């Protein structure tokens, strides 16, 4: 079955209008050799690559030979065309086994010897099912068609060769080789090579929200070497040839070269390519040449079909259907043998027709006849019904208010349609930490520089205040929403909503779809715009030190930092400011307007030179000490700049002003040198040196120094002045934004960015253009990113690196200088490590900032190899990685940062509920062990008296031994546990009283544990633990873990995550849930369900999952019941008609009975039934376990159902039989009460089985019953000669006018339902009391537990293994009452 579905899906994708799909997606690397002699072997390699010529350029001929054959830009995502719809659709539908089976039956009915009904009648079920699905497909396809048409008719300005101008053309008429001019905010119609941008630097920004949902801007670059900058691009004379790889679906890769007539080749990469369906931003005009069009664009090639997953229940269902087949065959065989025997004993009957056939042959015929007659036993409509029911369930899930996030204005997205009931059977939950458990709204919290910690007490307090504020301030959420809703709206990107049409067309209204495109245009705001993230209250101490730099007067008395420390601090903030990929924009200006990146001042250059002279030594070697500060003289200039509030441009007056201050600076030059030496030996006395500069500074600083907390005030004033000049930072990850905002709080402001330079405000220095040499972007292997810049002050080439502490600490300089320096470095390292550890314990995310100064020659050498790597086409990625790693060595650790990532609301409650529901929760995170443990504590995954098993092994053997040891330990512990009289049987919740085990395992150990030999031990160990924490795990490991658990334990797994690193895990799990959070949409795109908050999981699983599962399971059972019950009536009749395959019902009624009269109630049952109210399910999560272990739909339930059906059919057949036997009853008159009572029984059976009955149920039941009687009466009145041989004329009218009919129906119906009614009554009376009792016990127990926990926390929190952090309000265990909370605070 599964395979068949796969085949069907495969066919669908193949048929989806892209016959070359397989060919495109095949790896088509450009081999190096052919690249070199590409020109001569052009024809040979044409299959591997494409050459593009300008359509209206000088190479018209080549264009005709090569480019013309490429696909146009018209897209067609429809599966069918108008004419071919019926054959194509039928072809696809017959890939379904059930349909084939029924086709076979229909055909079988055409064989005269076995024909059971009229030929048309057996076609009806098949036709109805086919028609329903065909209509659904047609509607979906029609929507696609409309969408395609809309997209195809979008207008773009395309260069026209004749008129030598850009004309409006529809997208569909754009061809490869066309030049397209786009303006700001236009959507790119095809994949184009960027040839011209109005931006003087030749860049343009695109927003890829339509592709991947990320709203941040990406920069694209005009093909380098194009001599087009400045003047308008002239397409008609574009002479170059473009060679690039064949279309593929890799969004992040594009390789090729452009060959100019001169023979010069310019490499092309991804940054030159404008992708279809992205939007141009912040760039006035761009011109590009189309290289891929239509279906060959990367956007379209990424547009894969909806996910197809097979639910567990459906797998079970298939086995039961097989049982039905077995049952059917048995029944048919019985009939066949019976008929043979009957015929054998019959001699020359008057009623015989064709009695000359041998009994064996007749029996054989009857076998097939019976297969037709009893076909209903195999529920043809079941699959269709299940699909409909799931759609209904999805509709309700989609509409649930509890799963709606007010702040983001986002509902749950259901991307997979057919696994709703799997939600009710989850046994293992794998969760990412960042962004899933936590909000992923990073807020800078603390930092440590130069080995000195700055606790940012104010900031922490403010965070707490914010927390409180957030809870009550509703208006604030509006602000948040306006910023973020747009993002969420853009979540359904182009490819996303196209591919999942079947969902959206049925669950969301269509208009929404149409508007998305336009919404996405608006949807561009910073994702990290929350007030909280931006407002960092600086640490007064740090501010003081930083200001000391510019205003030494104030610092004269106390705590003067050494100049080296100042250098560290400056560099630290400079690194925070520039070592990122943040895009800056301001609302008042177009986003890309970056202040001119020219070096602003001549005089400043001199400052830099000076700065370089003094500051260089501390960073390279500590042989000489010099102050990095440029005090005083730039102060004039910078203070002016600050008061002006704008630093976007530098006016000549500013230039003059600084020129004027030059002498003062010269003055200054000697003193710091002296002072610095003093500083190092006796840091406390630095004030002396500061005094020297007094005269220079005095006039500039008096405004800020009037009050004792001057520095802070100054900062506040400063930030106030910034308000109207609000800068928006858009970062790829929230950490980056948080750091930039933090730096900004210290007035180190990132003002603008261009490819070559960054504009930075520094306190006391002012705006500086930092020449950006390279960005070595973040990747998960290196776990760090670097920027290579020319230091604005020293002119040196400096590498700033920011990354995970483990990595940076390893790379940090192993001192080679003097012993003193060595000591000094190791001191800083030790201190920083200590701070890092404490941050991690508090649950902060830690990052290290380091730098490295390069000698020119060193840089040159590196640059050469780097350029080589960049320009290489083969293995480019690997070479770049190598190159980056070569550079990032011997770093000087500047400092560390701690960023808070607060828990999402209700996470502890959710996790507790899930655990009580019997779901094992695993946390797989890339974070540090300490951070992970702390978060686990905070979200109640760990109880204070749980026993923590930590597995950090250095080698595989150690790991093996350790696992064994732990296993033993757990075994001992659990033996003790089972002996304990505590009510462990009531589920996880009560295990708080006894200790349970939590396994903490780090990435490396996990690697070993996942290996073949240790897998068993690891599994055994982990399955005995209540929870498992995997820290430092890579995305691959995450999916490996999921796979291991899923396959080896055969359990139902759910993975939830929010980032790209969770994608593999999400795809691996049975149910993948994406959290649409701060980190783009990759997780959502690959998920089955996308929610916006972790807490939604509890309702989704406990309530909807439970409902969906029990609904579907009950509905399937009911379907089986219904079919078995009805078919058996026909079977029993065979015993009185010589097993001849005769039926006592009109064949129309027979077929329609299942198809119409009793088809809707099960659907309603499957969609609306609630076996328990939502509140109970939420309140008593233990109820979830019933479904989890498939208690509703288990084999014995299937057989009980079948048995009950047998009983009911016996009653339903034999009561009328005995009541009518021997009388003059005709065939149809005999069938009439049987049919009617079967209908009553089947409908009332459902009433018995339903747990809730609403007016909808009532209406549907009435309509079903009514439709039967209506049809039958109408038929018996109007059908004069129709429907031979079972002509119903007058039968039902006569029957229903007789009291006997009703007497028979009444007793039959009641007798049939009696056992089930009795069973239900007795069962629920006896069982309910048990359930009540247990839930009552549960309540009392959990109450006790809570009290015990409070007491425990009061007494034990100090001796706890790991202190729960105090200054992270989000991490407070929330069950503790406020009383406890404050007590604890006091105690701390």
């Amino acid at each position, binding site marked *: 079955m599964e395979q068949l579905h796969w085949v069907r899906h495969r066919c669908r994708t193949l048929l989806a209008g892209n016959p070359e799909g397989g060919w495109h997606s095949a790896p088509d690397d450009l081999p190096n050799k052919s690249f070199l002699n590409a020109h001569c072997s052009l024809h040979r390699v044409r299959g591997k690559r494409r050459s593009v010529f300008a359509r209206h350029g000088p190479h018209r001929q080549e264009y005709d030979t090569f480019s013309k054959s490429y696909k146009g830009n018209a897209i067609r995502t429809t599966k069918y065309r108008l004419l071919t719809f019926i054959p194509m659709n039928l072809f696809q539908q017959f890939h379904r086994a059930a349909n084939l089976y029924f086709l076979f039956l229909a055909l079988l009915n055409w064989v005269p010897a076995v024909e059971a009904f009229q030929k048309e009648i057996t076609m009806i079920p098949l036709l109805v099912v086919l028609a329903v699905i065909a209509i659904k497909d047609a509607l979906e396809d029609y929507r696609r068609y409309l969408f395609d048409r809309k997209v195809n008719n979008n207008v773009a300005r395309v260069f026209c060769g004749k008129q030598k101008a850009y004309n409006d053309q529809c997208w569909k008429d754009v061809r490869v080789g066309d030049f397209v001019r786009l303006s700001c905010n236009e959507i790119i119609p095809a994949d184009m090579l960027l040839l011209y941008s109005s931006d003087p630097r030749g860049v343009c920004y695109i927003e890829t929200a339509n592709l991947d949902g990320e709203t941040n801007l990406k920069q694209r670059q005009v093909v380098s070497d194009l001599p087009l900058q400045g003047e308008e691009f002239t397409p008609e004379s574009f002479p170059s040839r473009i060679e690039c790889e064949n279309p593929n679906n890799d969004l992040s890769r594009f390789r090729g070269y452009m060959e100019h007539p001169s023979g010069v080749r310019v490499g092309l990469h991804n940054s030159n390519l404008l992708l279809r369906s992205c939007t141009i931003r912040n760039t006035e005009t761009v011109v590009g040449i189309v290289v891929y069009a239509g279906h060959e664009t990367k956007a379209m090639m990424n547009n894969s079909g909806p996910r197809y997953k097979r639910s567990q229940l459906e797998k079970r269902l298939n086995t039961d259907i097989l049982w039905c087949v077995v049952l059917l065959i048995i029944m048919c065989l019985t009939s066949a043998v019976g008929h043979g025997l009957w015929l054998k004993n019959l001699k020359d009957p008057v009623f015989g*027709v064709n009695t000359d056939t041998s009994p064996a042959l007749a029996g054989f015929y009857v076998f097939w006849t019976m297969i037709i007659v009893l076909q209903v036993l195999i529920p043809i409509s079941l699959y269709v019904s299940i699909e409909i029911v799931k759609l209904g369930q999805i509709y309700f899930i989609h509409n649930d208010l509890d799963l709606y996030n007010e702040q983001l204005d986002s509902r749950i997205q259901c991307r997979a349609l057919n696994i709703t009931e799997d939600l009710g059977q989850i046994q293992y939950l794998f969760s990412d930490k960042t962004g899933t458990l936590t909000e992923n709204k990073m807020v800078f919290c603390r930092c440590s520089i130069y080995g000195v910690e700055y606790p940012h007490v104010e900031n922490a307090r403010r965070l707490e205040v914010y927390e409180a504020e957030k809870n009550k301030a509703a208006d604030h959420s509006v602000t948040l929403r306006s910023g973020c809703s747009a993002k969420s709206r853009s979540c359904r990107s182009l490819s996303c909503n196209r591919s999942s049409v079947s969902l959206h067309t049925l669950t969301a209204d269509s208009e929404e779809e149409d508007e998305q495109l336009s919404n996405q245009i608006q949807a*561009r705001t910073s994702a990290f715009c929350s007030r909280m993230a931006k407002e960092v209250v600086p640490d007064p101490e740090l501010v003081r030190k930083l200001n000391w730099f510019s205003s030494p007067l104030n610092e004269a008395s106390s705590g003067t930092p050494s100049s080296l420390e100042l250098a560290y601090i400056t560099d630290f903030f400079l690194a925070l400011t520039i070592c990122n990929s943040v895009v800056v924009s301001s609302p008042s200006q177009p986003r890309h307007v970056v202040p001119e990146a020219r070096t602003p001042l001549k005089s400043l250059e001199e400052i830099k030179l000076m700065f370089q002279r003094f500051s260089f030594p501390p960073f390279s070697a500590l042989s000489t000490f010099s102050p990095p500060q440029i005090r005083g003289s730039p102060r004039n200039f910078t203070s002016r700049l600050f008061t002006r509030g704008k630093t976007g441009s530098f006016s000549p007056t500013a230039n003059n002003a600084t020129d004027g201050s030059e002498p003062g600076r010269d003055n200054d030059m000697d003193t710091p040198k002296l002072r610095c030496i003093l500083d190092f030996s006796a840091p406390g006395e630095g004030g002396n040196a500061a005094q020297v500069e007094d005269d220079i500074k005095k006039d500039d600083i008096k405004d800020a120094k009037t009050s004792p907390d001057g520095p802070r005030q100054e900062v506040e004033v400063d930030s106030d002045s910034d308000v109207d000049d609000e800068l928006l930072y858009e970062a790829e990850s929230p950490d980056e934004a948080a750091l930039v905002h933090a730096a900004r709080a210290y007035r180190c402001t990132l003002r603008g960015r261009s490819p070559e330079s960054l504009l930075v405000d520094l306190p006391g220095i002012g705006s500086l253009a930092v020449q950006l040499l390279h960005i070595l972007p973040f990747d998960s292997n290196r776990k760090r990113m670097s920027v290579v810049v020319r230091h604005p002050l020293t002119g040196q080439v400096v590498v700033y690196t920011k990354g995970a502490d483990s990595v940076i600490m390893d790379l940090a300089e192993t001192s080679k200088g003097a012993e003193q320096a060595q000591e000094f470095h190791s001191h800083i390292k030790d201190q920083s490590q200590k701070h890092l550890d404490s941050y991690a314990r508090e649950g902060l995310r830690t990052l290290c900032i380091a730098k490295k100064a390069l000698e020119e020659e060193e840089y040159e050498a590196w640059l050469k190899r780097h350029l080589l790597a960049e320009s290489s086409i083969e293995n480019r990625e690997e070479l770049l990685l190598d190159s980056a790693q070569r550079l990032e060595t011997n770093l000087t650790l500047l400092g560390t940062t701690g960023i808070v990532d607060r828990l999402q609301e209700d996470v502890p409650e959710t996790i507790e509920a899930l655990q009580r529901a019997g779901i094992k929760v695993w946390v797989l995170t890339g974070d540090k062990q300490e951070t992970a443990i702390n978060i686990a504590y905070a979200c109640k995954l760990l109880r204070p008296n749980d026993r923590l098993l930590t597995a950090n092994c250095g080698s595989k053997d150690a790991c093996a031994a350790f696992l064994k040891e732990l296993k033993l330990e757990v075994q001992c512990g659990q033996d003790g546990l089972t002996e304990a009289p505590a009510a462990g049987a009531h589920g996880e919740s009560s295990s708080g009283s006894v200790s349970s085990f939590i396994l903490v395992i780090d990435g490396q150990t996990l690697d070993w544990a996942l290996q073949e030999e240790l897998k068993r031990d690891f599994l055994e160990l982990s399955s005995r633990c209540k929870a498992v924490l995997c820290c430092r795990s890579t995305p691959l490991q995450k999916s490996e873990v999921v796979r291991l658990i899923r396959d080896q334990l055969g359990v139902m797994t759910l993975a939830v995550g929010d980032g790209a690193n969770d994608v593999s895990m999400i795809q691996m799990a049975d149910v993948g849930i994406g959290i649409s959070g701060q980190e783009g949409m990759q997780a959502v795109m690959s998920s089955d369900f996308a929610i916006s908050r972790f807490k939604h999981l509890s309702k989704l699983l406990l309530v909807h999952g439970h409902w969906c599962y029990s609904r579907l399971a009950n509905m399937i059972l009911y379907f089986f019941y219904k079919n078995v019950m009805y078919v058996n009536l026909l079977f029993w009749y065979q015993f009185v*008609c010589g097993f001849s395959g*005769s039926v006592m019902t009109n064949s129309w009624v027979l077929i329609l009975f299942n198809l119409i009269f009793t088809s809707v109630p099960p659907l309603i049952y499957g969609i609306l039934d609630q076996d328990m*109210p939502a509140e109970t399910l939420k309140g008593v999560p233990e109820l979830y376990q019933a479904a989890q272990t498939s208690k509703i739909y288990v084999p014995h339930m299937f057989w009980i159902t079948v048995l009950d059906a047998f009983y009911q059919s016996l009653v339903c057949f034999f009561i009328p039989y005995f009541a009518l036997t021997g009388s003059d009853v005709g065939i149809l008159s005999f069938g009439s009460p049987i049919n009617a009572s079967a209908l009553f029984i089947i409908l009332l059976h459902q009433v018995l089985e339903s747990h809730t009955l609403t*007016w909808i149920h009532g209406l549907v039941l009435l309509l079903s019953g009514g439709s039967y009687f209506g049809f039958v009466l109408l038929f018996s009145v109007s059908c004069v000669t129709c429907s*031979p041989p079972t002509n119903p004329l007058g039968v039902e009218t006569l029957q229903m006018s007789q009291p006997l009919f009703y007497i028979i129906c009444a007793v039959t119906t009641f007798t049939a339902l009696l056992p089930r009614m009795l069973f239900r009554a007795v069962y629920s009376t006896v069982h309910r009391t048990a359930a009540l009792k247990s839930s009552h016990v549960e309540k009392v127990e959990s109450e006790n537990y809570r009290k015990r926990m409070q007491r425990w926390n009061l007494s034990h929190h100090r001796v706890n293994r790991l202190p729960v952090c105090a200054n992270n309000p989000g991490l407070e265990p929330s069950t503790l009452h406020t009383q406890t909370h404050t007590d604890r605070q006091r105690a701390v």
Partner: protein
Amino acid sequence: MMASSYSAKDEDGHITVTGPGGAALRSKKPENTAFKQQRLPAWQPILTAGTVLPAFFIIGLIFIPIGIGLFVTSNNIREFEIDYTGVDESSPCFNCSQNFSWNSTQPCTCSIPFSLEQSYENNVFMYYGLSNFYQNHRRYVKSRDDSQLNGHLGSLKQPSKECEPYAKHENKPIAPCGAIANSMFNDTLELFYNDPNGTKVLIPLRATGIAWWTDKHVKFGNPGDGLNLTAEFQGTTKPVNWRKPVYELDSDPLNNGFINEDFIVWMRTAALPTFRKLYRIISRKDNMVPTLLRGNYTLEVVYNYPVRSFEGRKRMILSTISWMGGKNPFLGIAYITVGSVCFFLGVVLLIIHHKYGNRNNSADISN
């Protein structure tokens, strides 16, 4: 705040369709309706002993009287049945049953004496009963042409394929075609009352009104206007087993041809292999005299119909009927049984209810 102002600014892109704020108004918040939130007022039929037991008692109370009523009614029905197949050598019809031929011109007659113990009031219905006769055999049931029987001329000349192999005989279409018609019961039964004074009085039997009204007036019809049946059936031949063509079934033109009621009754195939079919009605003459007096009778049979080859049986049944049809005590017994079982179960449930139900009424969580 700034974000909103920002996005508003960007809306002047020319592809923008919605005006500013258009999207803001369209919140995606699901409607808070009872239906969408699955909070429709619902009746939760939790069947417990407490809720079910009244139903059981009530049903018991209803069923038992009905059962008694049915039983009494059924018992009040007079029914007399006599098997005249002639299996036994002692049977008067033994000879006739032995030498049988469909085509014999010499009718074999036999007379069976019987006596009624009670007098029969009201209308008495005379049935012939057949046993082990599978009129419900699939092929047999199919073997007819409703269109032909309805008087359709085309079907008369060109019978449906379903009638095969009884569609044509000697290249002439058979009317009525098919196995059912071909095997039509053709015994003639006559009833004589043996007056105590020795004379045999022929009891008048009514041959009309035995078929369903719809059958006679809607479903069955003679071809043409039905005035000259001989002409209408020109070019057709009689079924193989028949002695005379269809248009000679009766002298009464309203009971001849396809609308002959004996034929119609036969054509309504019986559901079970043992069945009876209404043959004649003995109407009561006046209210004072019973329709059939208590006493001796003779059944005169023209024995035409062979059943012994397949071990069938032929019977003649005399029965009065009630509102619930013929005599059948089963339903009455069934009702009484089910009613008593319900009553009994009601008591059992009462015990269960007292044992379990009462204790937990206070802790009822499922509202």
